């Protein structure tokens, strides 16, 4: 720095004089110092005769725009204190221009010496000299500590404005503005007890200003380690030098030591610190160090150079030079260990992933799941399919890789010779141990990295997987609820929320095809075949089977609206004929309305063909067998908006025995019931027709039993099985209306009128019971004949349509939407009963 620049800096900086009347009093004065550093006049702080203030602490801190050095006194402040830039320290030589960034702070009538007789440190405020890694304040050193005067030299990075101020609690602070911009560099200090006891160097960070970063780095180096660095054992080996002069040209840094130069025979000298400190700068390729006399051993050429005064003694060189090779060998062994660890890690990962022995098969996963969640009676175990990779296989892979890593690494520790050999070859043993430890650490890190990546990928995938699965399940559930899309078995009458599906490849059952652990959109069966998940998609491609009896369900079961209508009544009441005629009528109605009508499978088609043939040919219905009925199923509508209608008809005899009734499961899941009442079984009707209309009576094949018996048996069964009959509709069908008409008894068509007609013929107990047991009861007069529907009286489809309407299926001419003549029966029935 030139003299003019320094002078300008010092003018801008100036010293500050503070005088106070009390602890809070602060006065600042900037005194220009063009030719000499600024000076400060003292001010009184403690009254005369008071004890001499003792300096007890000294500390520096960094702030946003300034560094602060705080002096803490016990009990009182010194009477006089000042700070100024100096060109010469007391008793010292004239400082060079480059070193004129030094402040001298003096406290008069103050002491830093311990009381006479006290043991311990020579000062009351800690080390006499200390360094700070601050942008501005580099070093604080005690210059004088005697005759009730303490002086400190504060080395700054460069001359900057400063001021003194008084703080509470007997403290005086020096605030020095920090340089505008600094960069971090490394200073290398000596660690006397380094690797294997040999001295090493360790870098520490220092902020320096630019330009002249290299010179500033050396200045920081000469300032020495900070307190914490000293505590770590770092030392600055000065080799007698007190300062330096630095010049850098053509990649060669030439450092001339000043103040002294002596290695003392040690191989560790100030050169050990200067060379790495300077070579961190790109502009420095070689460092040549000169003695104060200007000599060095190799002043020319591409090499580093030290002066003869820094050359170590031969013995010490030999002792110190052992550290380098040992360290190099250590590094080489460690590198070999790292390489070995890399090989082990790669082998462990590759074999762990490639080998099939750790694959979690569908069978194994199923067994695991069952073990974790035992299957209770009446429940089904999990399906046998491949689990999603993130949900199970990822864990198995990582476990396998870790097991492989451990096994391989453990093998490395098997020593091929007797222990005594390794004890004798101790250096080799130690090197091998270091290499193996490095290998072990490397395997842990690399396999850990792979595990971390796998966990991240698998965890992320699993989270997305779970969210999508929940979404798909939820949407399917909403669909099912909206459509009443259940699946009912036409054979065992089991009602299930979703069918099971048989794999076309291996025929094993998949009972729960919902998106989940085994697949989101598709799942892979144990046989390898891909199956669609979700009932809506599976229903199109797979055959649904009953969860209970495993027999095939009707096509589309579980995906469309499902309505089940049981028909019951006494023997020969006309149930089967009513069913056939109702089916014929439904087919006719839907055909005229151009609504698709059909049968979901061949079995239903065959059943329907027989039924329709009997009705349309006018032949008598064959007596229904005692075997439990298989539902006759028809489909109304097309696609996902269609409806499967299951009609159940059992022989009248099965309603009469308690043992048989236990098997009538279809009654429990009905969406409304049809009770067929043979009017010819009513005593009053028989009496009316006796003798007069014998032909009609004979043709009717009248039911012999009491019409109330079958009704009572069914209602009792429903009640015993916990079925809520009170929430269902009951259609009471008075059959054979055509025969009654030919016998001279005309049945009304209106529901209430039919109820009244029955009451007049002493069937009022049945009417009363039905009204009490069911939510809604409607009466229909039916002629189970094939007739042109347009002019059909006693339509056999009317009861079915009324019940279908309750499940959301409305057909043209729906009795629900018909005129006031066919209103809900409860009110009418009640009014009729009131009349009676």
């Amino acid at each position, binding site marked *: 720095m030139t003299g003019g620049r320094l002078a300008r800096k010092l003018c801008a900086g100036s010293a500050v004089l503070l005088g106070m009347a009390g602890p809070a009093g602060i006065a600042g004065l900037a005194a220009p110092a063009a030719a000499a550093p600024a000076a400060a006049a003292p001010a009184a702080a403690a009254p005369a005769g008071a004890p001499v203030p003792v300096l007890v602490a000294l500390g520096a801190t960094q702030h946003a725009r300034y560094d602060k050095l705080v002096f803490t006194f016990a009990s009182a402040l010194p009477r006089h204190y000042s700070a100024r830039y100096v060109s010469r320290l007391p008793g010292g030589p004239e400082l060079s221009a480059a070193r004129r960034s030094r402040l001298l702070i003096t406290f008069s009538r103050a002491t830093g010496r311990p009381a006479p007789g006290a043991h311990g440190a020579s000062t009351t405020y800690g080390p006499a000299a200390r360094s700070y890694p601050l942008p501005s304040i580099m070093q604080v050193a005690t210059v004088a500590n005697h005759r009730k005067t303490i002086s400190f030299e504060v080395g700054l990075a460069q001359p900057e404005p400063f001021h003194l101020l008084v703080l509470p609690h007997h403290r005086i602070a020096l605030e020095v503005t920090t340089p505008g911009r600094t960069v971090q560099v490394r200073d290398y200090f000596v660690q006397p007890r380094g690797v294997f006891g040999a001295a090493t160097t360790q870098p520490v960070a220092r902020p320096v200003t630019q330009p002249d970063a290299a010179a500033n780095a050396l200045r920081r180096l000469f300032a020495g380690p900070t307190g914490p660095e000293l505590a770590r054992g770092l030392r600055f080996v000065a080799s007698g030098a007190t300062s330096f002069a630095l010049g850098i040209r053509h990649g060669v840094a030439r450092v001339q030591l000043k103040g002294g130069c002596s290695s003392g025979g040690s191989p560790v000298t100030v050169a050990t610190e200067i*060379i790495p400190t300077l070579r961190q700068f790109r502009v420095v390729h070689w460092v040549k160090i000169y003695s104060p006399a200007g000599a060095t051993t190799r002043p020319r050429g591409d090499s*580093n150079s030290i002066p003869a005064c820094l050359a170590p003694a031969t013995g010490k060189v030999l002792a110190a030079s052992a550290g380098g090779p040992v360290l190099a060998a250590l590094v080489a062994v460690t590198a070999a260990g790292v390489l070995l660890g890399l090989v082990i890690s790669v082998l462990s990962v590759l074999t762990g*992933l490639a080998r099939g022995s750790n694959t979690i098969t569908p069978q194994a996963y199923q067994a695991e799941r069952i073990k974790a969640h035992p299957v209770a009676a009446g429940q089904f175990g999990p399906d046998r399919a491949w689990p999603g*990779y993130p949900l199970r296989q990822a864990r198995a892979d990582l476990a396998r890789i870790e097991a492989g890593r451990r096994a391989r690494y453990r093998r490395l520790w098997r020593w091929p010779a007797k222990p005594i050999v390794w004890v004798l070859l101790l250096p080799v043993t130690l090197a091998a141990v270091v290499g193996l430890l490095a290998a072990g650490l490397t395997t842990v890190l690399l396999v850990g990295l792979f595990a971390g990546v796998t966990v991240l990928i698998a965890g992320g995938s699993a989270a997305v997987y779970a969210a999508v699965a929940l979404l798909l399940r939820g949407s399917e559930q909403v669909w099912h609820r909206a459509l009443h899309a259940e699946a009912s078995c036409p054979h065992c009458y089991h009602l299930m929320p979703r069918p099971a599906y048989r794999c076309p490849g291996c025929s094993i059952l998949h009972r729960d095809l919902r998106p989940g652990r085994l697949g989101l959109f598709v799942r892979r069966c144990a046989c390898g075949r891909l199956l669609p998940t979700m009932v809506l998609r599976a229903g199109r491609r797979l055959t649904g089977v009953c969860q209970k009896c495993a027999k095939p369900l009707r096509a589309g079961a579980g995906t469309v609206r499902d309505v089940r209508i049981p028909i019951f009544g006494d023997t020969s009441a006309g149930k089967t004929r009513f069913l056939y005629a109702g089916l014929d009528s439904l087919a006719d109605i839907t055909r005229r309305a151009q609504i698709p009508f059909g049968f979901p499978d061949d079995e239903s088609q065959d059943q329907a063909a027989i039924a329709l043939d009997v009705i349309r040919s006018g032949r008598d219905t064959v007596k229904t067998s005692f075997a439990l009925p298989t539902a006759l199923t028809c489909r109304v509508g097309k696609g996902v908006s269609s409806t499967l209608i299951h009609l159940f008809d059992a022989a009248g005899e099965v309603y009469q025995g308690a043992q048989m009734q236990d098997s009538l499961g279809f009654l429990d899941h009905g969406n409304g019931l049809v009770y067929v009442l043979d009017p010819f079984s009513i005593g009053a009707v028989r009496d009316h027709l006796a003798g007069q209309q014998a032909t009609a009576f004979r043709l009717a094949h009248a039911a012999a039993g009491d019409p109330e018996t079958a009704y009572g048996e069914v209602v009792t069964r429903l009640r015993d099985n916990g079925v809520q009959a009170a929430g269902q509709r009951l259609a009471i069908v008075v059959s054979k209306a055509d025969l009654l008409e030919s016998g001279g008894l005309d049945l009304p068509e209106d529901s209430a009128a039919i109820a009244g007609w029955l009451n007049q013929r002493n069937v009022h107990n049945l009417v009363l019971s039905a009204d009490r047991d069911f939510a809604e009861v409607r009466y229909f007069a039916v002629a189970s004949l094939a007739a042109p529907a347009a002019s059909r009286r006693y339509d056999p489809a009317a009861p079915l349509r009324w019940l279908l309407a309750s499940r959301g299926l409305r057909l043209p001419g729906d009795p629900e939407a018909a005129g006031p003549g066919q209103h809900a029966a409860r009110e009418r029935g009640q009014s009729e009963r009131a009349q009676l």
Partner: protein
Amino acid sequence: MTIPRTFVLFRAAAASATVLLLLLAGFGLAGHGLFHGLGGITSHALSWLRANTGLGTR
């Protein structure tokens, strides 16, 4: 027994991601790429080695 393709995909993805990370770290230690800040560690280590194995003191 045929292992599902998703298993192979997941394994390949995890291995590829690991290799990619290692490469990035390697480049970073060399002072290049996304993790170029790691170059400071290399420089530091090399300086330390140079200073402590006798290479830099003569």
